[in-house]
């Protein structure tokens, strides 16, 4: 084995051994192993192990509208303080226009308003004050809403007992959820489908004409009953206390009322609640969740202990889910599911099995073909091909990449394409063998000449794979990863391993002439 440096043999052999050793964890695939070595296994994507993928969009429009409503309320309050008369208020898509009777106080009002809402654009036009929701202000609302939503979603998912969920922001206003092992996401969707904004309001029983006309006076709101749309309540718009003051909530069972949710306020909440219940004995207190009244019991005595129960027509699951929602807190805005993909474990297992069969059969076909065409050299290329597969698997395992169904397709495709580098080399050797007779020189020239072609050809494939990664989503990324690793591994195996094997073969067989 003249001309073959020892360091090179050593490098090739160690890389091959590493490739094989680190493929072991993925081949054994012990799901629960805590062993540091066996933990380096391939992660299976949701499409292979079963699970749910959800993409949620935060309904920011609701928030912008809410903020415009706040502007209206604040403008009225400030104007009342300044004794300025408002003629009318126009709420448009992006702005609130307040028409004053005269323009005397308008500048003061503008300044007070600016104190409350820094960052909004305020314009005075004659007797009009225009309050604009500008882009920066929207962005502030958007960012804080997404941050808050992420946190609340995370809490709710954790409470639901899902193992190893992945929850992350995606783009400007979306949240991406991956829930391995969840095959029926209905309950999760229910949990995420509610904003869970809980507030307590005093009921106004005196103003019956407002309810009849369905027209709430300033400072009041009309809210329907949860179970009967036709039953409506006139409530103080201002909440006595809200869900943000809750420290605990859990499902409980009440002898007379059935399933209920018991809750406890923090100190501030308990004080507010105590004060209001003390001052309003005899009135009704409405418990409002997401714009409907769950229940509105009469305050029979002051509640100063800071805890209570909410009763409704709950069953056990509903009560405990409501408790989960209350513990996790309210979402700043509703979430809408814009994409959902759920795969059952059965289909995942079928896909893995089918992928394995396709890979093995593809491998056998290619190997047989190579031997038929190139004889011994083909067999050497097959060794490289098999090692190539091990290296892909070990790389996937050690970098913690996720294998998806398209990823498996990428591996099978690589099996077919990986021999290309070997073919290029062999064809060059074949040509060189016509020009000269020195066996080792032929081989050396063959490899050298093929090198630049192999690089050029593979880099173009890598470009396509990288762009696929940049623009693709989920499973498709899995494909681009296996394809890229396959291409890189095939360059190594062809240029180094096949090279080594060919030299070894020629040295040991003591070939005097080379006919491919």
């Amino acid at each position: 084995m003249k001309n073959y440096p020892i360091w090179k043999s050593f490098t090739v052999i160690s890389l091959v051994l590493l490739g094989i050793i680190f493929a072991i964890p993925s081949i054994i695939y012990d799901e629960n192993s805590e062993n540091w070595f066996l933990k380096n296994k391939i992660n299976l994507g949701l499409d292979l192990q079963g699970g749910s993928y959800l993409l949620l969009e935060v309904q920011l429009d609701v928030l912008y509208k809410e903020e415009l409503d706040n502007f209206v309320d604040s403008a009225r309050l400030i104007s009342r303080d300044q004794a300025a008369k408002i003629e009318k208020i126009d709420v448009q898509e992006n702005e609130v226009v307040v028409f004053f009777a005269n323009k005397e106080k308008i500048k003061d009002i503008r300044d007070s308003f600016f104190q409350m809402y820094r960052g909004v654009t305020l314009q005075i036009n004659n007797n009009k004050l225009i309050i604009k929701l500008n882009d920066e202000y929207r962005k502030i609302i958007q960012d804080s809403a997404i941050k808050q939503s992420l946190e609340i979603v995370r809490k709710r998912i954790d409470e639901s007992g899902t193992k190893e969920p992945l929850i992350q922001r995606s783009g400007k206003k979306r949240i991406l959820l991956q829930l391995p092992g969840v095959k029926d996401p209905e309950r999760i969707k229910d949990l995420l489908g509610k904003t869970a904004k809980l507030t307590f309001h005093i009921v106004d029983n005196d103003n019956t004409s407002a309810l009849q006309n369905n027209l709430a006076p300033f400072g009041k709101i009309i809210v329907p009953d949860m179970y009967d749309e036709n039953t409506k309540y006139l409530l103080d718009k201002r909440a006595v206390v809200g869900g943000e003051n809750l420290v605990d909530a859990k499902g409980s069972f009440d002898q007379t009322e059935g399933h209920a949710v018991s809750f406890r306020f923090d100190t501030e909440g308990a004080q507010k609640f105590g004060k209001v219940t003390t001052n309003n004995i005899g009135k009704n207190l409405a418990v409002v969740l997401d714009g409907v009244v769950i229940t509105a019991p009469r305050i029979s005595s002051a509640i100063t202990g800071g805890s209570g129960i909410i009763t409704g027509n709950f069953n056990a699951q509903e009560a405990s889910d409501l408790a989960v929602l209350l513990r996790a807190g309210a979402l700043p805005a509703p979430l809408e599911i814009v994409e959902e993909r759920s795969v059952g474990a059965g289909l995942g297992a079928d896909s893995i099995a089918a992928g394995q069969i396709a890979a093995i059969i593809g491998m056998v076909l290619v190997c047989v073909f190579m031997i038929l065409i190139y004889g011994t050299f083909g067999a050497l290329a097959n060794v490289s091909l098999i090692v190539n597969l091990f290296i892909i698997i070990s790389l996937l395992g050690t970098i913690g990449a996720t294998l998806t169904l398209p990823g498996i397709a990428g591996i099978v495709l690589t099996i077919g394409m990986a021999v290309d580098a070997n073919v290029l080399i062999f064809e060059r050797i074949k040509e060189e063998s016509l020009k000269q007779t020195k066996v080792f020189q032929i081989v050396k020239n063959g490899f050298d000449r093929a090198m630049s072609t192999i690089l050029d050809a593979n880099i173009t494939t890598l470009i396509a794979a990288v762009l696929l990664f940049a623009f693709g989503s989920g499973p498709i990324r899995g494909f681009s990863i296996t394809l890229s690793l396959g291409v890189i591994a095939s360059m190594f195996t062809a240029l180094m391993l096949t090279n080594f094997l060919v030299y070894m073969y020629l040295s040991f067989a003591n070939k005097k002439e080379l006919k491919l």
Partner: protein
Amino acid sequence: MFGLNKIIPVEPNINFLGLRRNFLIFSILAMLISILLLSIKGLNLGIDFKGGTLIEVSTKNTSIGELREILSSSYSDVSLQEFGNENIILIRLQNKSNQESIETVNSVKNLIQDKVVEFRRSEFVGPTISSELLFRGFQAVSFALIAILIYIWLRFEWQFGFGAVVALTHDVLFTLGLLSILNVEFSLATIAAILTIAGYSINDTVVIFDRVRENLRKYKKLELVDLFNLSVNNTLSRTIMTSLTTLLALVSLFIFGGEVIRPFALTMIIGVIIGTYSSVFIAVPTLLIFKFRPQDEDD
């Protein structure tokens, strides 16, 4: 040893470029027909790009007709299809809004609950997402073509880049045309397949161009047509060999890889064949438009 490679002579002498006019006409026709097909018939867009709901179920003691009857009484736009074998059925629904879809999945599940062994998968893609995905897929393919063009331009002379992109555009159009005729579902995986085809076809083209460049230096007196012919012949056995091994792997994937991956495998098979054809019959003849000599002689 077998050494069947001797079937293909080491220095074959086939006059590929002599036939270039026929192949050019064939390819131009194929591209025109593809464009026509794409604008009239269009592609069979899957839910990734069209939006909607898809539910895959495995059933027991029931027929697809029975399920169709149950569902079509509630939904006018439902379509059912056997998927692989008669016990596995795909249900597709078109939904207008996100909210509607979630309710749909639940009510479909309730309607057929007792006929179903397992809900194997359910997918829902909302209207905003599907148009985004289509746009991003289009972006990915365009950027890939541009990036490949730039790479070829850097590594070779710009004329080669032009030839490569003509061949690539041909491959993408021709493949899409065939997908339209065969009514193959067009999904995210198809976009991946098309990009891979672009990578594969360019790979093939680069190998031949590499040889053209080498021969341009080696044989300074040779006529361009003869030189191109020689280059194609030099690389012919490699071109055939690599296409065959790739096709072997893909056919295995098509037959054994399962129902979900089948459209992907089929698209790849079509693309590899077209890509190999275009490297030889489109990319190389395109180079004839340019006069490489004498200015590139001492390159």
